[in-house]
């Protein structure tokens, strides 16, 4: 493209996926992410790709498994209740070491909840959701541009590490428009000798499988997978630091809340309060070292979340409980206002 165009976050994800070489998309309608499927349904036939509306979220994630098993790039997207239904499938993808990108444009929960933006699936996304020992790489975009660029990155990481990458967005990120530039992308080329392509009678059959009836073998695959996770934790964690050089108070937030927090921080700085922000871009691996780096310098941390306080635990663990971490939250589809965050900054900073 080169040129900047205005796009909804949901559309940016879809377009970026196609640019990244994802020629297969399976989904099931749900607000607030329907535009992903709508966009795919228009574009895929034009580029020779496959858009298929599945009969359910469960069918969709299992179709994803099918394509991933053949070694091609594939994506599905949904919103909170639909992601819950994909839990088993995501666990299978992990157990089969299959690469795939799964998008969650979160809405308020639990249950049917509401359709307004939320970040209440943080735990679900970073701590399983599905059963068993595994991790997904979790990317949290905070702009429409990042909706695109992290989607592209997601596909590369998925292929590189043979695992699920989740894009954890929220209704606001999905619905808002911003200028976005989707470069002509060179997708990472990863050899996939394990892929199911038919033996052609030339090699032994490839098997994609997560069943190990012998527990020692299952344990070994888990141990091996965790070695990979450890490596990822060391190399792939990403965070943005904003005005952190001299910060005494560290606000931390991801996605839409990080943008609201920026407004509050600007205002606080204007009032002379030394506050900055760490914005985790990867929620798993959590960018612990970025926090640790500032644990001594800062006297307090504030975790701004659109949920009842989920990331806060990761922050506490990252700084090894060295400093107090305070929660500043709204939930159920409510978005915190800059004033609320500012008030919390002042409260924590002891400023009247």
């Amino acid at each position: 493209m080169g040129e900047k165009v205005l796009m909804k976050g949901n559309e940016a994800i879809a377009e970026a996926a196609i640019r990244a070489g994802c020629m297969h998309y399976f989904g099931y309608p749900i607000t607030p992410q329907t535009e992903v499927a709508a966009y795919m349904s228009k574009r895929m036939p034009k580029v020779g790709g496959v858009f298929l509306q599945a009969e359910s979220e469960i069918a969709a994630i299992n179709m994803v498994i099918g394509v991933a098993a053949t070694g091609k790039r594939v994506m599905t997207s949904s919103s909170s209740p639909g992601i819950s239904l994909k839990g088993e499938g995501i666990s299978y993808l992990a157990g089969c070491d299959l690469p795939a990108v799964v998008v969650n444009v979160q809405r308020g929960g639990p249950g049917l909840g509401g359709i307004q933006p939320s970040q209440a699936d943080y735990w679900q996304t970073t701590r399983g959701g599905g059963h068993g020992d595994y991790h997904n790489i979790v990317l949290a975009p905070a702009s429409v541009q990042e909706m695109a660029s992290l989607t592209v990155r997601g596909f590369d990481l998925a292929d590189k590490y043979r695992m699920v990458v989740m894009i954890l967005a929220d209704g606001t990120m999905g619905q808002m428009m911003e200028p976005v530039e989707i470069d002509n992308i060179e997708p990472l080329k990863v050899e996939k000798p394990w892929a199911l392509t038919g033996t052609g009678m030339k090699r032994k059959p490839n098997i994609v499988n997560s069943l190990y009836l012998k527990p020692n073998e299952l344990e070994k695959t888990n141990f091996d997978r965790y070695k990979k996770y450890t490596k990822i934790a060391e190399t792939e964690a990403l965070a943005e630091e904003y005005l952190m050089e001299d910060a005494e108070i560290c606000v931390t937030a991801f996605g839409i809340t990080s943008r609201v927090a920026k407004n509050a921080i600007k205002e606080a700085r204007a009032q002379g309060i030394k506050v900055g922000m760490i914005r985790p871009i990867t929620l798993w691996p959590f960018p612990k070292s970025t926090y640790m780096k500032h644990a001594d310098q800062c006297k307090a941390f504030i975790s701004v979340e659109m949920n009842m306080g989920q990331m806060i635990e990761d922050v506490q663990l990252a700084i090894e409980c060295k400093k107090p971490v305070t929660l500043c939250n709204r939930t159920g589809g409510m978005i915190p206002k800059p004033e609320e965050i500012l008030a919390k900054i002042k409260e924590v900073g002891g400023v009247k």
Partner: protein
Amino acid sequence: MATLNILYAGFGGQGILFSGRFLAYEGLLLGKQVSWLPSYGPEMRGGTANCSVILSDDPIGSPIVDKPDILVAMNLPSLDKYEDAVVSGGKIFVDSSLIERKVKRTDVDVYYVPATKIASEHDMPTLANMVITGKLLKEVSGLGIDNLDEVLGKIVSARRQNLVEYNKKAINVGYTFQ
């Protein structure tokens, strides 16, 4: 214009989101940072709709406009709801053909435009939104009608390019409305 926080509010079906996109593209062409955020809901037809648009010289933080510099009120409930939120010194554009009451605030500039009526009179009943937007382009410094073709070309879908002219006309009518 360091940052311009604009809030469009009215009924669904009044073209609120389209006008917002128009302004966002206008900002883009002016080299601004821009963001556009609709309210979305299950009542996609009828019910209220509003749209936050921000144009700024700096990177945009929150895309949500709580405290508009500019409010475009296209029905009474919207005016009731957002009048007090407008910043002091801000501007309120009122579709006076649908809203009978006057704005109570005295610390803001108010523009009454009978946009729906004007649009009907000009035989483009669905373009009240663009009429009032025309007025907005006139009254807000830094904006204007210099690049209508380009902006409209972007936001009107390829299959409906014939609508470009209508929109231009509506904007111009609003722009010149006294």
